[in-house]
């Protein structure tokens, strides 16, 4: 249903938005008869419902059409760029877990104290800071001034650090606040008091008994935020010249490369659906009381 909705939405929006892909491809100085012939060859002169029907028929066979810009299979173009975005998003998520979750746990355990306040202020700043500005700032500091990391490009771990940190900082802030909130709810529960009474070390109480029960809402938000990460990757990829689908989507939209935009959107939707499905399955193991009929 999600995939069908995404395909319909992107198809309709592309054709409603002004801009002719044939004119973009060939320029305004080309003979209008050539433009008309090309439009006919590509099926763009047919009624929109007929075009959509043909589009759906082709999707079933895995044919997402040819990119007008690259003159190759749109699916292939996207498939070549997708790993870069997945890598970036995964690394961003990694930062979120490495920095955000421990910060949230720490803040919950030191509630009301100085460190709690510091973590909350920083997470507020992190959620309010625009990605574009942050990326440029990181680039100036770590690449231009300190020469610790490259400014842009891809290929090594060093190239991944700045863009993934830029993309992931919002998630770090979000997870810190969410983890703190969930932990505070859990830390006051009777079973944790029982665990302490049994003589367990505090860190065991917090991590093994407390955190595991706070994990479910965190996992839910992570799943929902995957879409935001993929969307946020567009800005990050532009700033850091990261060769992912975000960059591809922007260029494809600017040139009205219908097939490429559709391919990017559909494949992104597939990734989003798969991740959320995985999260739904994960619930049943995190919480045995959750089941699906």
């Amino acid at each position, binding site marked *: 249903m999600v995939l069908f909705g995404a395909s319909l939405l992107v198809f309709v929006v592309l054709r409603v*938005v*002004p*801009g*002719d*892909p044939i*004119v*973009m491809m*060939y*320029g*305004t*100085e*080309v*003979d*209008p008869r*050539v433009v008309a012939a090309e439009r006919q060859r590509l099926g763009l002169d047919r009624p929109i419902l007929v075009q959509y029907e043909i589009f759906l028929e082709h999707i079933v066979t895995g044919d997402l059409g040819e990119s007008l*810009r*690259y*003159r*190759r299979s749109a699916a292939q*173009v996207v498939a*070549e*760029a997708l*790993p*870069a975005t*997945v*890598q970036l998003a*995964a*690394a961003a998520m*990694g930062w979120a877990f490495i920095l955000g979750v421990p910060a949230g746990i720490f803040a919950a355990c030191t509630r009301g104290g100085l460190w709690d306040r510091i973590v909350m202020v920083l997470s507020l700043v992190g959620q309010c800071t625009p990605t574009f500005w942050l990326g*440029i700032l990181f*680039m*100036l500091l770590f*690449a*231009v001034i300190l*020469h610790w990391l*490259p*400014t*842009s*490009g*891809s*290929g*090594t*771990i060093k*190239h*991944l650090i700045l863009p993934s940190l830029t993309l992931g900082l919002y998630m770090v802030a979000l997870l810190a606040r969410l983890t703190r909130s969930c932990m505070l709810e859990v830390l006051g529960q009777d079973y944790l008091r029982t665990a302490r009474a049994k003589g367990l070390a505090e860190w065991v109480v917090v991590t093994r008994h407390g955190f595991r029960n706070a994990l479910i809402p965190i996992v839910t938000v992570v799943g929902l935020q995957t879409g935001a990460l993929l969307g946020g990757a567009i800005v990050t990829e*532009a*700033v*850091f*010249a990261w*060769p992912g689908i975000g*960059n*591809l989507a922007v*260029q494809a939209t*600017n*040139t*009205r490369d219908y097939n490429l935009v559709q391919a990017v959107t559909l494949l992104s939707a597939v990734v989003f659906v798969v991740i959320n499905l995985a999260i739904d399955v*994960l619930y049943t*193991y*995190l919480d*045995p009381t959750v089941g699906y009929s």
Partner: protein
Amino acid sequence: MAKSNASKNGISRRQFLKTSVGVISAAGVGTLSTAGFAQSPPSSAARELIVAINADPDTLDTRTIVKTQAMAMHNHVCQALLMRDPKGQLHPWLAESWRKTAPTEIVFKLRSGIKFTNGEPLDADAVKFTYDNFLVKGMFPSVSRQKQDWIRALDRVEVVDKSTVRFVLKYPSNAFMIYVPFYSILPPGATKEMGDKFALAPVGTGPYKMGEYVPNSHLTLVANPDAWSGAPKTPRLTFRFIPEDATRMAALQSGEVCMVNNVTPDFATQLSRMSTLQVKEISAARSMYIYILCNKPPFNKREARLAVSHAINRQALVRDAMGGHAKIGGSPWSPAVRYYDPSLQPDSYDLPKAKQLLAAAGYDGSVIKFGFPTGMWLNDKIVAEFLLSSYKDLGLNVNAETLDFAAYYSNEQKHLYNLQMQSYGILPLHPDFWVGAILINTDNSLVMHDDQKIFNLIAEADKAPDERSIQKDYFELQREILDYAPVLNLYYFPYIVAQSTKLRGYEPRPDEHFFFWDATLAS
């Protein structure tokens, strides 16, 4: 002790979670260490040049390339019969000589002994094959229509012998030759064999050959040791594609790249303060224009068009919108383009005179549609706002419309705008490239003027028997365009590049091409 929640044959929750964490961690490490899809190459000062360009070429096939930067990168690998110097003069390249044997015939003599990097010979058959891709309908369906249009005067290419080709034109045309440098010669065998892959890994005769092309990342070229023109001075050349201006400048400042193109005036000021960098600014072959739709009121009257021209303070425009980095002149094309008449002066800024002219034209206050795309050219939005203010001062009732370029491009063909702001780059450095596109009335024409003198001068310049006559015609054409005013030139763009002070053998060109086969990076 807690009961295990595993069934007899199933997996326990604990086991599943441990396995999942293990799998995800392994996948994460594997992903992080994967570098197969894009490698930014190492930088080694003397043996490699790395430059940052603001656009990906998309394709490296001469049959589909039209973008300036793409052509420049492509020409390091693939070469045409002729090459154009920074003044627009043609020089032998793969052809050692050429001569006009009849008004509609040009014979090229090819250099002997040249081979493509796959071993195929450069010969007359390869030249014919190349041009047939544009001339023969259906031979290459994806061929650029724009490039087909550029050589519309060409009827056919004939093989005289292995090293001689004859180009037969449909009609005499001086301008035809200016397009020859845009058509690199293809190796017939490799082109057919490689099919679509040729666009990503072309085979040529140039000083470099393909190393690696990763779309949206980089293009790496390696020296061709058997190049007929000699090996390049630096064996490895990498173009990194960095569209974002701030990122491109940061790459230069950090020393990752040795040159960046298309520097904006703001960054030029900042970069020029660094002792390790050098900023170079020249007048580009690109101008900003107002195209006026001449077949609709009020601009079907010359007085109304001149009124708009006199209402624009070009000096203030250049100072305020372009930071003083553009130039103004009376010619419709920039000093970098051939046959530029330096004696012409732009219409002076004279608002009272402009209002008188507008009144004389009988302007009745009807809505004037002004269109301009945004995000395409340097400070285009600021320039458009300046113009709107000028129109308001003049007393025009303007309805402005701005769209992204794709949407604007579609609208402009429908003649929706009375006034349009647009830039045009005269890549061959020859005025025919612009006058043929803008001032010849076709269904696509943006101005639709009816000045027969302009039509006659364009035709005469194309058929003129010698250089002196051509210059005379183009000089007269410039005066006529200034007087009749179907198009108003606002300013000539600057072309600004920034480079390391260690970079030698590279100079910016007004056609925005860049060639690095003679460039070195001093250690």
